[in-house]
């Protein structure tokens, strides 16, 4: 059921976006972001005015092409097991530990 004055981003869309981005939000937060994000997207929507039918996308401004590395070991960067696990909150027997994902 659509309300009379629709926000550019609805409550449901904010919730969906937050879920996609794994951001745990409380109901009052979703409400707050609903108006903030709607304002922002209202403003951003003006990019529609640009005539881009014949324009290519730019996703890089480095002007480089075909940058590769040789297939060899770089021992200087390999972490010991201790270093790799160094900042983890939960670890055991050399593994990172995480709550089980329910399938």
């Amino acid at each position, binding site marked *: 059921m659509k309300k009379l004055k629709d926000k550019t981003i609805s409550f449901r869309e904010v919730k969906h976006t937050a879920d*996609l981005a*794994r951001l745990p939000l409380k109901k009052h937060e979703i409400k707050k972001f609903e108006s903030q994000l709607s304002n922002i997207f209202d403003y951003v929507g003006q990019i529609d005015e640009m005539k881009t039918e014949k324009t290519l996308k730019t*996703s*890089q401004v*480095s002007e*480089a*092409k*075909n*940058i*590769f*590395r*040789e*297939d*060899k*070991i*770089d*021992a200087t*960067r*390999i*972490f*010991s*097991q201790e270093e*790799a*696990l160094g900042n983890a909150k939960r670890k*055991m*027997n*050399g*593994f*990172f*530990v*995480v*709550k*089980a*994902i329910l*399938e």
Partner: protein
Amino acid sequence: MKDFVPTIGLEIHIELKTISKMFCGCPADHFGKTPNTQTCPVCLGLPGELPVPNKKAVEWTILLGLALNSEINKAPKFDRKHYFYPDLPMGYQISQYDEPFCLGGYINTSIGRVNLTRVHLEIDTGKLQHSVIDGEKVSLVDFNRSGVALMEVVTEPEIHSGDQAKEFAQKLQQIVRYLGISDCDMEKGSMRLEANISWGLNLGYKVEVKNLNSFKFVEKAINHELVRQKKLLDKTDTPKQETRGWDEKANSTVSQRYKETASDYRYFPDPDIPPMQFDENFIGEIRKMLPELPEVTKARFLKEFGISEYYADILVQDKKRAEYFQSAHLLATKYGVSAKVIAERMVNGKVDEEFDEPELLVKKLVEILKKDFAGYSVVEEAVQEAVEKNKKAVKDYQEGKGEVVGFLMGEVQKILKGKGDSKVVRDLLLKNLQK
């Protein structure tokens, strides 16, 4: 009235056996290594990390595309595919979305050609293991595999039976091994297969089947699944769009979770990796690296050597064997030993395992021929006869009386009227006794 046709598409992931990972210099060989000992800022997804693509992995992917008759994309790119999972350290997988390295291609099976959609390159994830700690269900994560170069081959939904799928997978494995780019071993996980199965493209569903870790299971699972779906369709039910796994014990597919109608991966070009632009020269240099492929070798063996198709199939199974056979024949022609003899000995006697170098095998064969010694198969028959006639001696041997071998060798030579080469007789006798 709908036409139900078994409609199967395969997605095959193949781990490349490059020395280092796809975007960093960590070792790519992770099988059996102590957990989390082969990681660096890049493959562990640390803040500030940046990927730099492995040239060999790119070349090998293009090489596979060339071997499969694909069109090589001159302007491919890497994209980020976003989803959250503990084994995916960056929260996205670097993969390829709309501009993969290879487009199209095909493999011919005995039941018909199977066209490919694409071959692309992406990174592998870490490994998850389930466990329980103090009653809490947890997952243990190891990132040694994270970042390994992984090729994905996607077929069009043109496979129509379990055994065609099996044949396709076997042929693909053979080609990949011929190219030397992967061990492509289903048991070790360097080849992983998923099947999308339905009874038609317009029925509004397809079922993804995972956990197929042998060719045997591929065939069984597909056949089982087709039957399961047909039962539902016959009752005018539409099978659920979902992911199922093959359960060996239950001998059936089991529901794992609903397959969402295309997750929102929010693909966009990876801004850390400059775009690629290839010209004919670059692709040509890779084309030069193509070895003779098994289909071609087989055809050539049949034509040039007149060996049977059965022998030819076995000899081209493995590139090393085919090369061995080729070398052995070249050497043997000098001495008038026929290709058929070599083929027969390799297939039935596995002599290439016994003689490391083809040259040594050929020398042995020549020796036998020169001295008019009895051929291998003749000796084998004589050995079998002697063993059957001398059951007590065989029993003595089995009880540890090694000296009985000399007696048995004599018996074999009697049957051969003395024409057995001593070493050959001894070896074949021992082989028989130790069976």
